[in-house]
Structure formats: structure tokens, C-alpha cells
């Protein structure tokens, strides 16, 4: 579904950092991939390259066979098929909860009013927040905001969901409710790429774990093999530090 072919990315500001070095990967439909690694390892950059929020300076990413770094590609149609959830939620503060979920359906999908309102109602119910449909984002807790953000991404009927550390900005007692929604999604067969520090989630849900460090994929494999029997010294050190 997504074919990442040897991408490179270097940041020059504030100083030169090699964020991605020769990263290649294949993400299959229905797969749940969890990307872990220490901070600054390039995992977020990798994720953001997948829908061209960052552009790689070398290499290719094919989404359903479409080269997204090709200037001729209409990136908006590609992005419409990929939902993204951010660490800082990024809900639109000037719209209500249902306004947030409605907007892209209206502007991008051009859904008629009735249809998108029905979709919004259904999704807010799914993430367990239908009581707050008319509330403003600023009046919601972090966990509630993140669940709305997930509903907003799902409203586009994406083929793949990208999660960029969705629980890192949350208070500990709210992490559970967000992970619960993500687990439900995974069970429904959604293709997911998830950058996270939640090892429990990775172990329970992931089909494949990718460990990145210094812009390179150090190790990847099934969660069992990855956690019980890591082959790389760097992985062993990282797991020792966080577990």
C-alpha cells in the first residue's frame, strides 16, 4: 500500500541533522506498524514524509503506486485518503466539535449536509464523545480532544491512519481512552502507522515494530521477537532504558 524506497532527509536549521538516512519500508494494507525510537531518531519525520508534510530530498514514496514527491501528483487527493492524528491534537479552536469533524467532509469530500452530519454523529459516538458534539475544543480535556481529532481524521474514510505520538501530550489517566479507540480501529482492520512510546499498545496491537535511531531503521520485526529477543545492541539498550 505504501512503498518507501530509500528516502533521505537532512535538516539544516538550527544545525545540520540527518533525520532520515536510507529508510526503506513496505506497509501492507491492514497492517498495524508501530515506530519507536529515542527522541530525535527521525521517526516523526518518517511519518510526516508519508503524506508529504515533509519532503524527502532523495528517494521515493509510492502510495498505491503514486509517487507523492512527484510535482505532478495532486497531493491533496493523496492526503484525503490518509488520516493524520497529531501529538498536540490541532483541533480547530474556532469550530465546535462537530464543526471540526464536518469541515473536511464538506470542503474535500463535498458530501451533502445530511450525509456528513450523519457521518459525524456516528463517528463521535464511536469515539465516545457524542455528548460533547456542540462543545468548543477548549472546553474539552486532552483525551477528549484527541478522540475528536481521531474522529475528524476518520470522517474522510481514510485508507490509512497516521498517528504522530497521539498520547504523548496527555495526562496519564487519559492515555487509556485514546489507546482504546486506536485498538478498536486496529481490530476493524484499519491500516495504521503509529509513532508512540506506548509499549503496551505496541505489544498488544502491532503487527510489526520498527525501531529507529539516528535516522536509520535499526531493527524491525514482530512485537514478540522485538521485545523478547532483540538482535541489536542499540535496541537492547533502548528497551532497557524505557522498560
Amino acid at each position, binding site marked *: 500500500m505504501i512503498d518507501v524506497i530509500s528516502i533521505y532527509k537532512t535538516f539544516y536549521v538550527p544545525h545540520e541533522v540527518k533525520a532520515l538516512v536510507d529508510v526503506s519500508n513496505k506497509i501492507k494494507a491492514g497492517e498495524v506498524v508501530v515506530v519507536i525510537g529515542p527522541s530525535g531518531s527521525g521517526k516523526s519525520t518518517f511519518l510526516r514524509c508519508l*503524506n508529504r*508534510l515533509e519532503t524527502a530530498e532523495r528517494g521515493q514514496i509510492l502510495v498505491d503506486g503514486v509517487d507523492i514527491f512527484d510535482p505532478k501528483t495532486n497531493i*491533496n*487527493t493523496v*492526503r*484525503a*485518503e*490518509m*488520516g*493524520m492524528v*497529531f501529538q*498536540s491534537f*490541532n*483541533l*480547530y*479552536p*474556532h469550530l465546535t466539535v462537530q464543526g471540526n469533524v464536518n*469541515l*473536511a467532509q464538506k*470542503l*474535500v469530500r463535498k458530501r451533502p449536509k445530511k450525509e456528513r452530519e450523519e457521518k459525524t454523529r456516528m463517528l463521535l459516538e464511536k469515539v465516545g464523545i457524542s455528548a460533547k458534539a456542540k462543545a*468548543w475544543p*477548549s472546553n474539552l480535556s486532552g483525551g477528549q480532544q484527541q478522540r475528536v*481529532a481521531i474522529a*475528524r*481524521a476518520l470522517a*474522510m474514510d481514510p485508507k490509512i491512519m*497516521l498517528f504522530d505520538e497521539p498520547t504523548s501530550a496527555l495526562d496519564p489517566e487519559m492515555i487509556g481512552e485514546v489507546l482504546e479507540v486506536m485498538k478498536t480501529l486496529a481490530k476493524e482492520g484499519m491500516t495504521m502507522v503509529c509513532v508512540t512510546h506506548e509499549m503496551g499498545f505496541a505489544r498488544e496491537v502491532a503487527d510489526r515494530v520498527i525501531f529507529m535511531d539516528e535516522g536509520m531503521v535499526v531493527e524491525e520485526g514482530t512485537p514478540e521477537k522485538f521485545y523478547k529477543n532483540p538482535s541489536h545492541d542499540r535496541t537492547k539498550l533502548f528497551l532497557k532504558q524505557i522498560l
Partner: protein
Amino acid sequence: MEQNVSNIKRLSSPIAYILSVCGFFVLLFMVIGSVYYATVAVDYQWRWFKVPKYFMYKSTVTLYAEGYGEIDTIAANKDKYDITVTTDAGTRTYTVAEGTFDWTEGDMVAPGDIIASYEGGWQPGILAKGLWVTLKISFIATIFGILLGIIGGVARVSNTPVLKWSAMAYVEVIRGSPLLVQIMIFYFVLGTTMNKILMMNGIPKLDAEWYGIMALSVFTGAYVVEIVRAGIEAIHPGQVEAARSSGMTYFQCMFHIILPQALKTILPPLAGQFINLIKDSSLLGMISIRELTKATREGITTSLQTFELWILCAILYLLMTFTLSMCVQYLERRTATK
């Protein structure tokens, strides 16, 4: 909010607070009193009672004979009289009330003779007209200023050189020269050439008012561009990422996500800009637009009530700007909860 800014109120005793309030009013009366004393010292005659006529007055209607001739008939017509006058300019009938004329049938009339003279309806005075012109010009210039400012602001943050550089050049050129000079250029340079071109093509020429509005809009627009740019740049980049990653185009993101949020945060500096615009419209008197300031000046040349009219003029500007600032505060409060 206000309680957080200063906790002096909480610390000081009630008596000190009351004394402080009294101090303010003492100062206020001292200023007003000294102004009054100064005018007494120079023997200025205050004539406030004459001021209302600059807002509304009863006009006098005078009917003049149009040529040599005579009064044909004076016939009662309900509670009025029909005076038929035949002169070498033709026959005319005037319908006037009793007591407004002093003729009998057969009287001779000469051109310029007063057939009848009576009080007409209420007419707006020169200050009322000037106020209206100032309001109209400010209102139209505000709308064009906002449009120019938003278009320029969006262009200013784009990555396309043609848009970005145009917006930058616009801002720098307009901010770098005095408004008065710009008004002169708009009227005497642009106005002269444009009116000539319009006339050559058989289109009626534009009033001075429109060149004044153009100058004010363009001037204000340049400042609004910078305000809008600041507002756009203050929006968290995550908002753009969220919008774009859901497949919205640049312009959809700009008009549905960024601008609505930016306009809310820039309301206070925008209000300041448009208060300035109302005040700057006083310069338009220079190109013979009779707005409030020019109207005041003309009122003074006929009445010599210098002190009253200038004070009144200032108060009228204050009323306009204060109303605007109250409206914006109301808008701010209404959008604050979101």
C-alpha cells in the same frame, strides 16, 4: 483579567481609593476651569445657543418674480392662495399661505421682486452634512481597507514572489510617505489623468470624494496588510498541518482555518487602525471634500464662533471613534468564548 493586572486596589485602604477617585475629578475640573478662565481673560463670548443651527435649521423659502409683468389674480385655494403672475417670461401660479405675501391684483412686478417669503422645512446644517460625509467616507474606506488588507496579507505570507514582493512593495511605498502627500497625489495626479481619460471615453468623471476614499483605503490597507500578516503568522503551524493533511487546498485552509482565527486575534489593532482612518479623513478637506473638519472651518468663517465649533468638532470625532471602539469591544467579547 483586570484584577490580575494590578493588585494595588486590593492592598490599598478604601479611603485611599476614594481620595484617589476624588483626585481624578479635581484634576478634570482644574483643566476645564483653567480653559474657561483663560477664555474669560481674553473676553471670549461663548454663544453655545447658536450652535444647534449648524445641525438643523429652518430654511427660508423666497419666491422671486421672473420678469416684468403684473399680478393677474389672487384666488383662495382651500386654506392657501393661488397667485397667478404674468410676466414677459410667461405665466406662473404660486400657491402660498396667507400672510407670506403683500400684493393685490393688478400690481406691477419687476424681476427680482419677492412674490412671497415663508419658512420652509427643517434642513440639515453644515456640521450635520460634514458629519455625514465623514461617516460615509470612513465607512466605505474601511470596507476597501479591510479587503485590500486581507488580500495583501494573504499575498504577503505566500511563497510566490510575484504576490509576496508586490505586497511588500505596496506596504513599504505606502507606509513611507505622508498621508497628506498621498491624498494630493491621488487627487491632483491620479485624479486629473483619470478624469481626463474617463471624459475622453465619454464616461462621467469621478468626484473628489472618490479619490479621497481611494487614498484613505490604500493608506489604511497597507497597515492592515501588516496586521493581517502578524495575525496569520501567530496561528500555530499545527493548524495548517491538520487542515492540509486532511486534503484541503492552500486556499481552503487559508479561508476556513487560518483567517477566521487570525481575524479574531487582530481585532484590537484593527480597531486602532480604523479609528485612525476616521481621524485621518479630516485631511480630505485639502482636496475640497466638505467633511466634518472642512465644514467646521466653513462654519467658523461665517459665524466667528471659533471656540465652540472646534470643540464641537473634536467631540463629534470622539463620539465616532468611541462608538467604533465600543462596537469592536463588543465583537471581542462575543468571540472570546470560542
